[in-house]
């Protein structure tokens, strides 16, 4: 058992799978010799060599296209798109190619690949390098979408994603790279499509993802301490497949549902979960479903502004308290 950063967990997860399976290859900008601009892939080039760990030109379409062609014909590529904002320059592969090829060909073509990308705010980088865009992927049929919140989940979900036969978009949160957590020795393989109750509770269900998970937990502590509200916190972990059983099961227990989204408001994943709950669990709800999101605005660069746009533990706690009328 070792304490690992979220950043190092990325390299650990990739290395674990590259050791196991020769068909796993890795490409991206500055990922090999330089170990990645977030230093999340340090050591892979040294261990696996330039044939398996490859630097590319600044050609995101070529990166994802090449990953797809290789995946179709027998490899299991991992492609890095440095910042998730840049998914926009290669979005055709995300939206039209990866997710549709199996269906359109009536199952002839497979696409087992992983796109890893740095997601989320907190670095004061401004509107084009800070977005939380997991809903860009969630809305596309045929993709799987994963976003871990801990080093352990990074390793286990990355391994599961690499072994998965479908294209997986894997969102790493930039503001979590420096965080640490215990990770057991030996092989770790998790399962996609399983949410985790990270804090049991009975009064309200708070559903969160990635950086919002520790914030939701902090909010829950505050709610408990200051208002005696016992909130259950769920880490969604995987948006597709979506573990509605765990989420709706919790809601049935608590009667109240909150989502905490870093993505801007409109059409966020929380809206999807809210709509499922409002349909399937309407009679179990004791009050409104409330979404706590980043406002529907581009992200400001300035630190003081960036700090207040994202949901904070205080804002989360306050909104839950107010809604519960406590």
């Amino acid at each position, binding site marked *: 058992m070792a304490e690992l950063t979220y950043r190092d967990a990325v390299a650990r997860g990739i290395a674990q799978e590259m050791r196991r399976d020769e068909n796993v290859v890795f490409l991206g900008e500055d990922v090999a010799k330089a170990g990645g601009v977030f230093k999340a892939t340090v050591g892979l080039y040294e261990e696996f060599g330039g044939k398996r760990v490859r630097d590319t030109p600044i050609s995101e379409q*070529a990166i994802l296209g090449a990953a797809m062609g290789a995946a179709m014909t027998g490899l299991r590529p991992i492609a890095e798109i440095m910042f998730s904002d840049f998914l926009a320059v290669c979005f055709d592969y995300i939206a039209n190619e990866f997710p549709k090829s199996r269906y359109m060909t009536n199952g*002839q073509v497979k696409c087992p690949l992983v796109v890893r990308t740095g997601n989320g705010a907190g670095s004061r980088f401004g509107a084009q390098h800070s977005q939380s865009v997991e809903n860009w992927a969630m809305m596309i049929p045929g993709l799987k979408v994963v976003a871990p919140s801990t080093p352990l989940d990074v390793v286990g979900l990355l391994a599961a994603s690499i072994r998965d*036969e*479908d294209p997986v978009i894997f969102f790493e949160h930039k503001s979590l790279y420096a965080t640490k957590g215990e990770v057991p020795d030996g092989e770790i393989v998790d399962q996609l499509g399983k949410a985790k109750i990270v804090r049991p509770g009975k009064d309200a269900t708070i559903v969160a993802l990635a950086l919002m998970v520790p914030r939701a937990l902090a909010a829950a502590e505050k709610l408990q301490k200051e208002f005696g509200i016992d909130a259950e916190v769920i880490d969604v972990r995987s948006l597709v497949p979506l573990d*509605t059983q765990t989420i709706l099961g919790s809601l049935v227990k608590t009667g109240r549902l909150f989502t905490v989204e870093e993505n801007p408001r409109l059409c966020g994943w929380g809206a999807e979960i809210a709509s499922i709950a409002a349909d399937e669990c309407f009679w179990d709800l004791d009050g409104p479903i409330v979404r706590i999101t980043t406002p529907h605005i581009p992200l400001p660069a300035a630190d003081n502004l960036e700090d207040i746009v994202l949901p904070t533990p205080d804002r989360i706690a306050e909104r839950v308290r107010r809604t519960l009328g406590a």
Partner: protein
Amino acid sequence: MNAPGKPVKNDDIGLDTRMELYRVQVEIRDFEKRAFDLFLQNLVKGTSHLSLGQEAVAAGFAVAMKPGDKSFCTYRGHAHTLARGVEMEKVLGELMQRDNGLMRGKGGSMHLTSVEHGVMGSYAIIGAHLPIACGSAWRAQYLGQDDVSVCFFGDGTTNIGAFHEALNFAVVWKLPVVFVCENNLYMEYTPIGDVTAVEHPAADRASAYGLERIIVDGNDADAVYRVAQAAFAKARAGEGPSLIECMTYRHSGHSRADPAKYRPPGELEEWMKRDPIKVYKQRLADFGVPQADVDAIDQQTKEKVEAATEACKAAPIPPVEIMTTDVYADGGWAWRN
């Protein structure tokens, strides 16, 4: 097969191969004409993009390919799919959106795919498949397999970003991929010359990637075959990609909706004089192939098209159940538990 008693000069290609080149072109021609007829009868559904007039490109490359080589095509992909030996009935079935179609009607005419024949897909977003072909070639290089990935696209496709990214990428990684531009002078309705900074949209860009400038007569299957062979040999020798511009012309409109009124008068007629089938019939005659051998191919092809048509007309439409199959690898479409 050899033309009996006629020693032939300059025959680097060989008559067996020439007969195959002819057969493939005729098969495409007759198929496409039938597809057009069936469209007029409303039996071919959706859209459809014919390669009438461009058969020599598809034939020249496909006949030069080996089993295991991969083809990446566009929405204008009937020709390339048939040329790799995919059953006519399955292709036509897909155009007619029947259950006997290559993809049981789920993909449609723009997405013809037959992995078992190396036809790795037909892509309908301009340019997308050039990087994908790079990936297939990368796999071959990485695994030490000696197949070549061949990527077909039109003149208009040279102006989209993915073209540029793929070419640079392929050269830097020295990939066994061959990029084939079928320059038929038009995008959908706009002449390529109106929107391109250079005369030859592919070949005049080759030097931007350190590649040789290659232009070939796309209406002469022999010329295409030779250039294909050279490019494949280069790729298999580990010497990297090629970019080949084939000059050709489509006899019909861009798609089923297009009467092609934008053509200057006389242009089609000029190109009809160089119709690839006509060119090739003459070639066979020059090489002394008896007319009867040519007629036999024509006849067999007619019968094949007839049989495929009947089979497809009789085929059922796709069952409703397949609507939700093969979204994910588990065969289904569940995005939740």
